[in-house]
């Protein structure tokens, strides 16, 4: 196999130097077998420009740190292999999130805020009894909770969402999925009406205009379209009853 010379056009911007406008910088390197963008970006930093900023933690598509736009599409850099890329690739930071520098964005703060707004914890008055056996749960229910809980908070669904790009307070598919996670959990004692208070509005589930890029872009395959439909249906009927009361 002939070795390919790869070109990466990477957005550079350091908020500490606002006088330098954001721009694309071109890097070149030789492709290696099994190369991922994790390998590429570390090589570029260590061998060509030590100031290049980007985020990786697990490099195994578990932690959700490395979401970015690869040729315009939001995805995890760690699981993007160069063999699937053309000779020239453009890397941009995820939109919507605060830019910290180059490809590094502050997804952590966004998700923490979303978690607070959706009150992402089990709401219950029961106290834990250390001497009692655990409460039983049907395994099918456990699996259903886990299906929503698998979200890794990478932000790909948000960066690729038309609504989130124009409405800064929209909780997006990740937020709606989060609500679904607690709705299916029998340990959470919130009523439909309480959930309605949280997401039954234009910044919540009714802000979605149904383009479903989120469902296409989720790198871990959370069924976001189904989750959106589930929460929307629940909230529509709750809203209907709520109005009548």
């Amino acid at each position, binding site marked *: 196999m002939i070795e390919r010379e790869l070109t990466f056009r990477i957005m550079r911007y350091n908020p500490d130097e606002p006088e330098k406008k954001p721009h694309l910088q071109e890097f070149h390197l030789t492709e290696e077998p*099994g190369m991922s963008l994790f390998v590429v970006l570390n090589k570029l930093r260590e061998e060509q420009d030590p100031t290049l900023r980007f985020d990786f933690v*697990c490099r195994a598509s578990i932690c959700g740190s490395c979401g970015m736009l690869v040729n315009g599409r939001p995805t995890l850099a760690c699981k993007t292999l160069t063999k699937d890329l053309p000779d020239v690739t453009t890397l941009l930071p995820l939109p919507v999130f605060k830019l910290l520098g180059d490809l590094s964005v502050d997804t*952590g703060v966004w998700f923490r805020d979303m978690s607070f707004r959706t009150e992402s914890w089990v709401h219950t008055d029961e106290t834990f009894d250390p001497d009692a056996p655990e409460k039983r749960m049907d395994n099918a229910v456990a699996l259903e909770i886990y299906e929503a809980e698998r979200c890794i908070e990478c932000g790909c669904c948000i960066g690729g969402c038309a609504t989130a790009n124009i409405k800064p307070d929209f909780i997006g598919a990740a937020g709606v999925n989060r609500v679904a996670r607690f709705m299916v959990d029998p340990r959470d004692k919130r009523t439909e009406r309480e959930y309605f208070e949280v997401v039954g509005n234009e910044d919540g589930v009714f802000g979605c205009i149904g383009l479903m890029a989120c469902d296409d872009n989720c790198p871990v395959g959370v069924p976001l379209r189904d989750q959106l439909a589930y929460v929307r249906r629940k909230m529509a009927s709750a809203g209907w009853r709520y109005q009548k009361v």
Partner: protein
Amino acid sequence: MSRYDSFVTDVLVIGAGLAGERAAVEAATQGLNVILLSLVPPRRSHSSAAQGGMQAALGNSAMGKGDSPDVHFADTVKGSDWGCDQDVARLFVETAPIAVREMAHWGVPWTRVTKDEHVYDGKVIHEDPENAGLITARNFGGTAKWRTCYTSDGAGHTLLYTLDSMVLRLGITVHDRVEALSLIHDSERCYGAVARCLRTGELRAYTAKTTVIATGGYGRLYGASTNAIINEGSGLSLALDTGVVPLGNMEAVQFHPTGLVPSWILITEGARGDGGYLLDKNLHRFMPDYEPAKKELASRDVVSRRIMQHIRAGYGVESPYGDHVWLDIRHLGAEHINTNLREIATICKNFRGIDPVKDLIPVRPTQHYGMGGVRTNIDGQAYGLKNLFALGEAACWDLHGFNRLGGNSLAETVVAGKIIGEQIAKFTAEASLDVKSSLVEEHLHRQMDRVTRLRESRDGTEYVYDLRREMEQILSHHVGIFRSEDSLQDAVNQLSDLHERAQRLGLRGGGHGGDPELDAALRLPGMIRVAYCIAKGALARKESRGSHFREDFPHRDDANWLNRTLAYWPEGADEPELRYEPVKITESPPGDRGYGEATRGPDSAKP
């Protein structure tokens, strides 16, 4: 003097993975103010990557019937090769079932016992219908019963997300993208930490009645590691650099039998626990030849050595990344692989382009876990410095001795978090914050000075990434699975030289703001000191115990080495100083593990 932000709190927890967050939750529940510092948003911590599960003797599943904390205790002590503190192990096994149930109460969707029958290793297993809906368990290496509680393929992920939901609910302050650079102390007592904001590069002073190190492991000192890239042992160097706090058993390094070649991403023990085989280049299942009783599920140190032994005997599969063996889970079937082992299927597809439903997985033993860490007593209090605690992988509590069982580290995070968190709360309630501002400024200035010198390349122009690669190679080549005198002496000499060169680092970039090169340069000298402790401890220990295997001393030597290494780095010294202390034996006198070389010597097995 430059401006800096300062923060005051009751409890400062450095590290927001499972151990740090569990301790923080305990302290906050008891009414204390807590600040959690984290290199990354808490949910991105390496805890999230634990796919397998946590051990707790619930005994709900059919294959876990008759399990109890006593059986868990025996497995843990055996696994440690009698190197653990048995009072700690006893406390741990008794608390683990409560900790698992508490996590269920808070929201973890543990996989439950079902009434369906399932097939394991050719046998049909019937669950007790009375137990349907209770928390179930899977099989893991080195255990007499099925004891590892799990959530499909994401035990660590669901534990971390649930615990972080408690941090949110309790309103605990979290400062993410912050790195602690040094502890503020006067050699008697710890008063907090100097830290750097990784967003802006600004230094900060955190003062606290109690400081807690929960920074996780140091896998990245070895280039090839299953660990996340943030696992650089930062908490260990924080403690070591005080000059008065020792690191315990740093030579005890665990290599996981199945790292994926060549990205070294972990393929969970669940793969073998659920019935996977290891095959050699002739597609022969070789583990039963070496370990007829436990086969693929002997303890990790033993399976890793048996794989390397088999490769050395010429049975490895050749590859550009070195010889490896195969992991075969094809016979488990598509449905099982795509639910209970989904993470494996995803990793194989994304990072190697193969499908384990029909393909073999190339694996090789890879650095995975450090049994050693900041030495503490049973309450989690660090040796040598008051008002300092440590827990989780960063600590040497010492539950694991010379080899940790799979499923015991995830368990340790939340169990130690619960137990030590309570001790932290009790201790802090009685403590006062009585710190001189001159002491804080002195420690701040020392870090500011380091930053300036690096930026201006005042001490030299050594490049951080070059030195770092050398450190990784020294450890990988000389302080790996098979160890011997000459090679270890080489490692010590080279690390000594490298440590000296690390005093002459200079930046190639500007080092302004949250500059990654500056982050790395501030971190590297401490990493090299930790690496030095590993190599020197391994050179000194002239026996084989658990994961520490000396080819020149292939047997355990209880007469001379039934002890724990304590590595100190006295202020101004250019190498660590080793001392030793006895291990605590309360119930189980040293004996045969029932697997490994003591039972069947390396020469006895013929493939």
